[in-house]
């Protein structure tokens, strides 16, 4: 086979694979969502319970992504500037645990059967079966995303640049503001978007610990399950499409940021 033919074969194979894996199921979802017409679609989305679930999901996911963007970047910094194999292994644990188990463990820790949970309930700041639990679950399940996205970028940074800046009289803050931050911003932003997308899709852990009360602690993914089980597949598909559009819409913004970073180098 000539190199040209091989290239065409490879490309066709990849496209076919992506079509089977991604395009077909997603088209099915969108078609399903629009099966009863755009008016019905809109009706499903603006249903008060659905809307409240979407708002809660986006709000908690944005908060979790922001907290993890800061915390995860700090962890990545520590990993890059020192040798901590044990810490590095710990970072990946959330991806290895089934998220349903995460939810059950958090309930066991912060629920009323544990002393920690009893103390929190006594001071009227419950974590589980309340909104903070949703954010906590999201923080846990998405932690590796920020660390592993930011880490390679940080390890590329040359400490000599920082030394140079300091030699020129820059304060620690100025070094961070003018040398480090511009270099890492695109990676942190990309990690934020990935984390946000992962969090709005989270189901298992949140279903176990949030309480799932409509308008209060019911997130979009659990709402979708309820609609599916009740036989309202169209409504479930409509809300899924909203989640999909939002995560997809943010992805190009993140890629643009990352490209800008490489354009500078």
């Amino acid at each position, binding site marked *: 086979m000539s190199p040209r033919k091989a290239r065409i074969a490879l490309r066709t194979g990849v496209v076919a694979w992506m079509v089977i894996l991604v395009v077909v199921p997603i088209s099915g979802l969108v078609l399903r969502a629009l099966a009863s017409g755009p008016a019905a679609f809109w009706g499903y989305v603006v249903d*008060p319970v659905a809307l409240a679930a979407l708002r809660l999901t986006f709000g908690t996911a944005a908060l979790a992504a922001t907290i993890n963007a800061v915390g995860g970047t700090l962890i990545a910094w520590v990993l890059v500037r020192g040798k901590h194999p044990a810490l590095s292994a710990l970072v990946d644990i959330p991806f290895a645990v089934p998220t349903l188990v995460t939810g059950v463990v958090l309930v066991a820790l912060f*629920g009323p059967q544990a002393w920690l949970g009893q103390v929190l309930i006594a001071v009227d700041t419950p974590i589980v079966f309340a909104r903070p639990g949703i954010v906590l679950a999201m923080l846990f399940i998405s932690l590796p995303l920020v660390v592993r996205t930011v880490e390679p970028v940080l390890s590329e940074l040359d400490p000599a640049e920082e030394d140079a800046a300091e030699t020129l009289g820059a304060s620690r803050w100025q070094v961070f503001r003018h040398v480090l931050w511009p270099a890492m911003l695109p990676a942190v932003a990309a990690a934020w978007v990935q984390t946000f997308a992962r969090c709005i899709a989270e189901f298992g852990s949140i279903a176990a610990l949030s309480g799932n009360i409509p308008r209060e602690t019911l997130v979009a993914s659990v709402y979708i399950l*309820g609609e599916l*089980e009740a036989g309202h597949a169209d409504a479930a598909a409509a809300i899924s499409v909203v989640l999909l559009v939002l995560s997809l819409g943010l992805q190009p913004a993140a890629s643009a940021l990352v490209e800008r970073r490489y354009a500078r180098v």
Partner: protein
Amino acid sequence: MRFVLALPLLRVAAMVDFRVRSQPPIAAWIFGIVGVALLSSASGCRSKDGSGASTLVLAAYTTPREVMGNAIIPAFVSSWRESTGTTIAVQESYQASGAQARAVAEGFEADVVALSLTPDVNRLVDAGLVRETWDDGKDRGVITQSLVVIAVRPGNPRNIRDWADLARDDIEVLTPNVRTSGGAMWNVAAIYGAAMRGHAGTAKDDPAAAEALLASILARVKVMDKGARESIVNFENGVGDAAITYENEVIVAQQQGRPVEYVIPSSTVRIDAPAAVVHRYAESHGTTAMAEAFVAHLSAPDSQKAFAEYGFRPVDPTVKAREFPPARDVFTVDDIGGWKKLQEEVFAARALYDRALAKGRPE
């Protein structure tokens, strides 16, 4: 073929309720994975030998899992061996009733279904899988009865006596999500029916009063789990002051030494759980006789006795396995208009339940 059969099973496994009492989640996972492997290989065997007359697939809701596995299925296997000389295997799948009905409707080829409420079986009738005559028998296809009760902490420290107490603002209540749980629908039917019958401090036959009572109770709900079993497990773990649940769930918890008591409200609904042969699948598997014998076995006195030992009220009134506390006003779903009317007036989108939920929890 093997793959085609395994796919719906994988789906089912993904939905199966892992948080089974006394089983740690990790073990449940491993159990689930091994179970799927076994089931899919067994369905492979079945398609190979063609006759398929040696395995029966039971798709059930989660509540009767223990009594089925420990008593009723072993008894059926041995009586079938005595009468026909063949040793059979029964494959069991348990998950929330509504999800189970949907799985079977979408191609999970069970020979027999045991579900928590009649409308779930009727979905299979609509799908052309179960015969329309399935509930013509004397018990109308019902194999167990129970009551919707209020589970409380030992000694009933919050002095919860009746539905109206669940609306008190010092009480936290657990009840599952009606969208996913058949049990939750029974709970709502109990409150609605008690109000409509004028037994909950409300005017008789006044839907507005029933909606108001339901709204005030839903306002006190702290956790809405996916299924009845998860809900009672959370209650046992210390969440909430009261859980609306089945009488038999509390009895099983008590048998396992868990500190939980229950109160029978002044008026409550009798839970009728049905079983049926899935004729379409059974015929294609060549298991019709076995499936029919199994469903008949569920109503036999020995099985009814076993159900009673696990806290269900027997359908056969002559079976006396345990004393159940007396209840004042017990009604059936037919007494309050039947499932069809309830579906339309209470459970449909934006109907009474949705309105009560919105009213109880204003934004």
